[in-house]
């Protein structure tokens, strides 16, 4: 138990340190956090074939310049005729912007360079953080009201702390990924919510098991009821939890196989986050709860 705790704590600390470092060393966010540029090129001539050739040429030129658009979306009219194209880039410097502008300039097109206004995303993140806070409070209240037989305050405290740890760990992972260019997007924050959700239902499941078993054991064996109950609860929750983590991993790996950077950021964060949430809940939830009981 002690060794496991040390190993998990070291991994946890490393991820957090890397996460904090990445905030200072690299840009954590791309186009979702007002650090993006959009290049909108409109076709003047309505010559679809000519415009498509021009776009292909432009793509090749971007590759030569070493700038990789994060997204490329066509602009169409109601008849699906291509009227233009919109590229999105992560934060570019003035020289890169100028070079891109020069390569895109052509007599038959109108080029517009626009900066992305990500102010609303910041508000989204603030609200999301408030949401996480309320989520933790609700979890605590839930244990306080519905888990009286396993001491609501203590079980609530342990479960809430573990969920918070899982959320911080997932944030650390997401920020660490920024070091290798997988930027933190609004979608990543949603992945962190997913981790919180998994942690919440895993804790609730284990405690619910413990609740039932504890009630049965109180009738039978009064002494050592906690120890007996939690070993039994752990044993009974193994199969369902293993099945869930297995299925979730498969789903996330399939989604990650698409290979898009914005998806990788959410998939990797969620995958590692749920494993951390699962491992901590499985290994530490009941021992911590039992330790609190003993005190």
């Amino acid at each position, binding site marked *: 138990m002690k060794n496991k705790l040390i190993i998990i704590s070291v991994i946890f600390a490393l991820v957090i340190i890397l996460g904090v470092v990445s905030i200072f060393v690299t840009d954590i966010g791309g186009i979702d956090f007002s650090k993006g540029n959009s290049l909108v090129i409109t076709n003047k001539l309505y010559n679809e074939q000519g415009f498509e050739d021009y776009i292909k040429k432009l793509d090749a030129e971007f590759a030569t310049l070493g700038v990789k658009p994060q997204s490329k979306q066509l602009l169409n009219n109601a008849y699906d005729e291509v009227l233009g194209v919109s590229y999105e880039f992560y934060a570019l410097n003035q020289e890169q912007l100028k070079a891109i502008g020069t390569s895109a300039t052509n007599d038959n097109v109108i080029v517009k360079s626009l900066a992305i206004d990500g102010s609303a995303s910041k508000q989204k993140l603030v609200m999301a953080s408030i949401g996480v806070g309320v989520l933790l409070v609700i979890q605590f209240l839930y244990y306080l009201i519905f888990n009286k037989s396993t001491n609501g305050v203590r079980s609530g405290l342990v479960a809430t702390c573990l969920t918070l740890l899982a959320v911080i760990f997932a944030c650390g992972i997401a920020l660490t990924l920024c070091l290798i260019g997988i930027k933190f997007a609004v979608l990543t924050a949603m992945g962190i*919510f997913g981790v919180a959700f998994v942690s919440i239902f895993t804790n609730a499941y284990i405690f619910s098991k413990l609740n039932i078993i504890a009630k049965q054991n109180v009738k039978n064996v009064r002494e050592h009821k906690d120890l007996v109950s939690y070993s039994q609860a752990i044993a009974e929750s193994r199969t369902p939890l293993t099945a869930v983590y297995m299925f979730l991993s498969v789903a996330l790996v399939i989604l990650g196989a698409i290979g898009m950077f914005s998806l990788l950021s959410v998939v990797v964060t969620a995958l590692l986050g749920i494993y951390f949430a699962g491992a901590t809940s499985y290994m530490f939830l009941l021992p911590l709860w039992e330790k609190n009981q003993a005190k």
Partner: protein
Amino acid sequence: MSKTKSVVLFTIIIAVMLFLTVFAVIPEFHIGRNIYQSPITVLPKGQDIYKGLYTDFKITRPGGMTDEAFNESKDKTISILRKRLGDYNLSDAIILSNDDVYAIRLPTSLNAKMATGVFAQRGLFAISTTDNLNDPSKIIISNAHLSSIDTGFSQQANKFYISLNLTKAGKAAVESATMFASSSNKINLTLFLDGEKLYSVPVEAPMSYDVLTIPSDNEENTKLIKAVLSYGILPISLTVEEGTFIAPAFDTDVVMWLMISLVVFIVAIFVSLSIVYGVVGLASALSLVVSLLATLALLTFAYTPEFTISGIFAVVFGIALFTVCSVNFLQKTKSIALTIDEPNMQKRMFIATGRARKLTDMTTVKICSLCVLSAVVLAFFGYGTFRIFGVVLAYMSLATLLCNLFVTRPLAYLLINITNCRKCLALPKSEEVK
């Protein structure tokens, strides 16, 4: 459970499944107003998986305005636009800028009325006792006279209403305009927006001048008026150009791949449960399908913001919740079945399923209710991407709760009856022989 009972239950479940399938799959099913189109078509889809609307707009500097004042006005204009977009659940909109040229990307659900609500700029909202707006003496109130605005639906009158909370100046204006109308007790109000007449409506002369409640002719106009009036007028005029459609952020191949992976994931769960837990597992897997269809139905007909890629992730997490509840029940059934000393396998399975259900129902209720609560919190506090994640998760958790309580067991009983329990729970061979 007797054979007749399980057949009745089976019929009900199949009927529900068929009904939900009709909701989910058939493109045009003519029952009532709401089922006119398939839910997949009706389900509002966000710009990252469907397509968006792209439009440019230009902010014009009024003559004599200082740089500082102009920049402040521009910021205020963008902030008001964002709030109005939020009123239409379009908070995922992206605003791009370069000096005075702006562009906006919106989900396609922006119809003409919504566009008016978002971009209405001159703020010439007025309530007049006449259709002729050119006569300024007839204008009773404008934005300047309002402190806040509420909208809603009155069950009693069966109509939407707009409740205008008036400022002191507003009260005085309404009072003076209606003082001569008290004999007839009715005044005819005409609502204008940006110089265009929206509609006219006769209203009772107000008894109190704090609040003026006006019936609205339809929901669209109610939303439009709320979006424009709630956040004040745009401080600066803007010119909106014709919009174009923009391709989805995740192109069609990616969305297709996402859908395929979701289906593969569901099939994998279906097959695994059936193999590991036999026919009872199959009942659980079928229950999962019912819960997914129920979620889809809820997404279509209950309140739903634009469905984006985060909705797909929410479905995955929702399925995970379902799996925990199901495997908990199946595992319990299996362990109870192994301990019962009953030579008739069918009877043994009936007893085991019943007992397992009793033992696991409370766990299911507890977990799912906590998950519904958590998801509702996410939906309440979230914007755009977060909100759809919370909403889908809440619906999935609710469907998981209901299906685990009311669908899995009857289905399991039925399948035990039908299959004569040769492969009821994929028990070891020695156990099956008993």
